[in-house]
């Protein structure tokens, strides 16, 4: 009996590595600290009522933001561990298996559990406000999406201390991810963590498409819609076509592992190459899914901080829609070297290069918007300007990779690693950081400190180039990705050391940003106007932080950049004040079902991960019970009375 328990515990908990013991201790300590604080200050009820059950898109956005910053920290620590291992030749800091696990979790977390939620944070924080809407189309579904993401991410993350991390790369190629080469639960954690959060992402895609198409304020034609909302629409269209493919792909991989199926196996008629096609049919659109909203953010910021209307609005919209379509025709460029006909390779090489055209159009539009503008170099604008050269270099190396014959030379080398970090950090991370700085006052009611932010900005930027420029060279020198160590004889030592220094500079930048947030909560400049940047779009017409119903009176939109037009008309004296008529506001009620249902999904995932079918069955029963219960709920909304709206507005300094 005792032997059995000991045996179970030794396979269940990951043991034998001091780094992981350290993580165990810190996890236990932080859980104790959280429970202690919540109990001591009697905050459990508050947590449940105000956050765990909320359907308010702004709060859901804040929760996404917190989760994604935590994941940025974890993914960043993974990156630093890798860079430490590679800093010098023959380092024995991580063994090869541990290194594999770390680069796998780094990639997976950064794309799926950092970039995606940070994007959803911005969707939720901004889109309804920008459209003049009171909420998203399906607030309940929105909460469910968040909790599915959260529990999926947690399932993936506990693999680190329970059962063992996946170590077959961030896309889990078979046969490496099959049972023969990845026995144990690691790969199952990967499958179910992503599967559960992926269902949430798909639902978010549907939710925001309908929100954008149907919830715009009266008068806001699509041709007057702000560009960030356009970018969200483009991204969501890609989500609804790409994510079902991911769902199927992961399900098939799981059937291979769990039910002995032969989809991607090397025997029994399986076809590992099919997995590569399927995963990249999702995976390539996925990188555009995360980068296109960044383009929307830059468009808003460039216009606001140049005090000019965006240059080439229509071409911006077309560019994003073209990217949404072409992104589905480039997937095979991820495996040019794996043996297919020249004509197929030519097709994918050309379609890949074609994506560069609309992207180039956008870059020129941003530059033309800045041309002769009165630019103010606030933090959002700084990140936008830093993005442009970074992304242009990244785009150029992307086209170099798309040249198929040349790709045979640097396929899977550090040149590639440098390229995708350049577009994903330069495009996505810089973009989302810019967006967070820009919209932060709207959500929280204060600005983030400029000085600390600039320190963070420069550490990130200098660190970025110091880290990744040497990697281009290393790629040409023959260093391929996934090496866990190398010898002195290779001549890669000095460049690797420089790269590691750069990674740590970026880490310092992140610390400055954390400090900046902590500092600004107390000392940040309060935003009493609701319009701290002299903005152009509707979200700046309401107080900061936005009240829970967003708009006391639904705005009537007449122009593109309607808020800017209103401000100009007021300055000219041509503004005609229309009498505001307050009406009771229709709002959705909070619900605990999304949180509970996501927890049952966690049980499903955890059960299947360890092959405990009974637990998965309990999970599924719980999921269905939640759906059943929700179906029978009819009393799901309420009205905010006029007096309460008036009181709330008055407390925010507005008279309606």
């Amino acid at each position: 009996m005792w032997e059995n328990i000991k045996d179970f515990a030794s396979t269940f908990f990951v043991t034998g590595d001091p780094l992981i013991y350290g993580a165990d201790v810190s996890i236990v300590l932080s859980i104790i600290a959280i429970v202690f604080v919540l109990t001591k200050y009697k905050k459990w009820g508050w947590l449940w009522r105000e956050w765990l059950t909320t359907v308010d898109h702004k709060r859901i956005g804040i929760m996404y933001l917190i989760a994604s910053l935590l994941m940025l920290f974890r993914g960043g620590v993974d990156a630093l561990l890798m860079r430490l291992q590679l800093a010098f030749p023959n380092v024995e800091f991580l063994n090869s298996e541990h290194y594999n696990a770390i680069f796998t979790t780094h990639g997976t977390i950064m794309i799926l559990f950092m970039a995606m939620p940070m994007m959803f944070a911005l969707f939720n924080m901004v889109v309804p406000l920008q459209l003049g809407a009171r909420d998203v189309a399906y607030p309940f579904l929105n909460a469910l999406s968040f909790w599915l993401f959260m529990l999926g991410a947690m399932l993936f993350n506990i693999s680190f201390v329970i059962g063992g991390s996946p170590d077959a790369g961030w896309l889990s190629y078979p046969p490496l991810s099959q049972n023969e080469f990845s026995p144990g639960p690691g790969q199952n954690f990967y499958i179910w963590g992503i599967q559960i959060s992926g269902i949430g992402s798909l639902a978010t895609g549907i939710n925001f498409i309908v929100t954008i198409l149907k919830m715009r304020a009266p008068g806001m034609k699509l041709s007057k819609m702000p560009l960030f909302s356009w970018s969200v629409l483009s991204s969501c269209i890609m989500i609804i076509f790409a994510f079902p493919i991911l769902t199927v792909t992961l399900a098939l991989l799981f059937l291979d592992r769990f039910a002995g199926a032969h989809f991607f196996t090397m025997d029994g008629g399986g076809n590992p190459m099919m997995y590569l096609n399927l995963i990249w049919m999702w995976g390539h659109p996925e990188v555009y899914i995360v980068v296109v909203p960044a383009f929307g953010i830059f468009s808003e910021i460039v216009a606001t901080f140049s005090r000019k209307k965006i240059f080439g609005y229509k071409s911006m919209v077309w560019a994003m829609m073209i990217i949404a379509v072409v992104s589905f025709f480039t997937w095979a460029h991820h495996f040019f070297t794996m043996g297919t006909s020249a004509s197929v390779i030519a097709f994918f090489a050309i379609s890949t290069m074609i994506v560069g055209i609309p992207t180039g159009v956008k870059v020129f539009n941003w530059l033309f918007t800045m041309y002769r503008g009165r630019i103010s170099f606030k933090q959002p604008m700084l990140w936008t300007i830093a993005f442009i050269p970074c992304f242009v270099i990244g785009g150029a190396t992307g086209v170099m990779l798309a040249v198929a014959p040349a790709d045979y030379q640097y396929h899977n080398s550090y040149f590639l690693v440098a390229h995708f970090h350049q577009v994903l950090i330069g495009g996505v991370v810089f973009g989302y950081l810019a967006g967070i700085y820009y919209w932060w006052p709207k959500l929280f009611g204060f600005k983030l400190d400029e000085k600390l932010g600039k320190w963070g900005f420069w550490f990130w930027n200098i660190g970025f180039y110091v880290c990744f420029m040497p990697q281009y060279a290393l790629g040409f020198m023959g260093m391929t990705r996934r090496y866990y160590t190398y010898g002195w004889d290779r001549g890669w030592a000095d460049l690797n050391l420089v790269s590691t220094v750069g990674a740590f500079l970026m880490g310092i930048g992140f610390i400055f940003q954390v400090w900046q947030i902590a500092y600004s909560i107390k000392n940040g400049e309060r935003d009493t106007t609701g319009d701290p940047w002299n903005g152009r779009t509707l979200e700046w017409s309401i107080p900061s932080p936005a009240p829970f119903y967003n708009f006391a009176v639904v705005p009537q939109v007449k122009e593109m950049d309607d808020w800017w037009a209103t401000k100009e008309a007021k300055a000219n004296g041509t503004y005609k004040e229309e009498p505001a008529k307050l009406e009771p506001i229709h709002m959705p009620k909070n619900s605990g079902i999304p949180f509970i249902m996501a927890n049952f999904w966690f049980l499903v995932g955890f059960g299947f991960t360890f092959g405990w079918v009974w637990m998965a069955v309990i999970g599924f029963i719980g999921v269905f019970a939640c759906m059943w219960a929700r179906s029978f709920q009819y009393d799901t909304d309420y009205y905010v009375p006029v007096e309460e709206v008036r009181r709330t507005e008055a407390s925010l300094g507005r008279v309606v």
Partner: protein
Amino acid sequence: MAQHHDHGHGHDHDHHEEHEQLKVLGFWIFVVTDCVLFGTLFATYAVMMNSFAGGPTGQELFQLPGVIASTFILLTSSFTSGLAVLAMNKGNVKQLIAWLAVTGLLGLSFVVLEVTEFMHLISEGATMGTSGYWSAFYTLVGTHGLHVTLGLFWMTALIFQLKRRGITAVTRRKITNLSLYWHFLDVVWIFLFTVVYLMGVM
């Protein structure tokens, strides 16, 4: 947050109608995503079509009469679900519930036939692990069957709700979505029947 208030407002009804319309649109988009899901499974099946790995082929094991019977049953259930919607539009709750029940029973017999077919195939030695072909077969056909089963579950819940509440804006929307879902599964089955069974025995 505001406390709950009674719904005593004049525009209450409009708001509800509007929100229900939104949910129908969202459901259409969900159906699009489900199309992509089935499309991916069909593509997988197409790739695996000849990967028998020395195991039995579909041609050897399929028994068309049973499959044709279940095809007719499912097509009929799609028709009766249409009748249910017509009854709803006439405002006849009893008829609506009755046609839903008929639809549900037909759907149930479809699922039973499918399970019987799977058991037969397994007894003939074709399991998920036999070959790539059978993995793809069970996954594609089974996913459709799972969808039908979920539809039955949903239908049952809606019958209870109709009994309790009658035809309202909310139940109307739910029935609209359900019938949309049901017709969609029918369309998928027609493809399935053609690609898997007819082409399989050709």
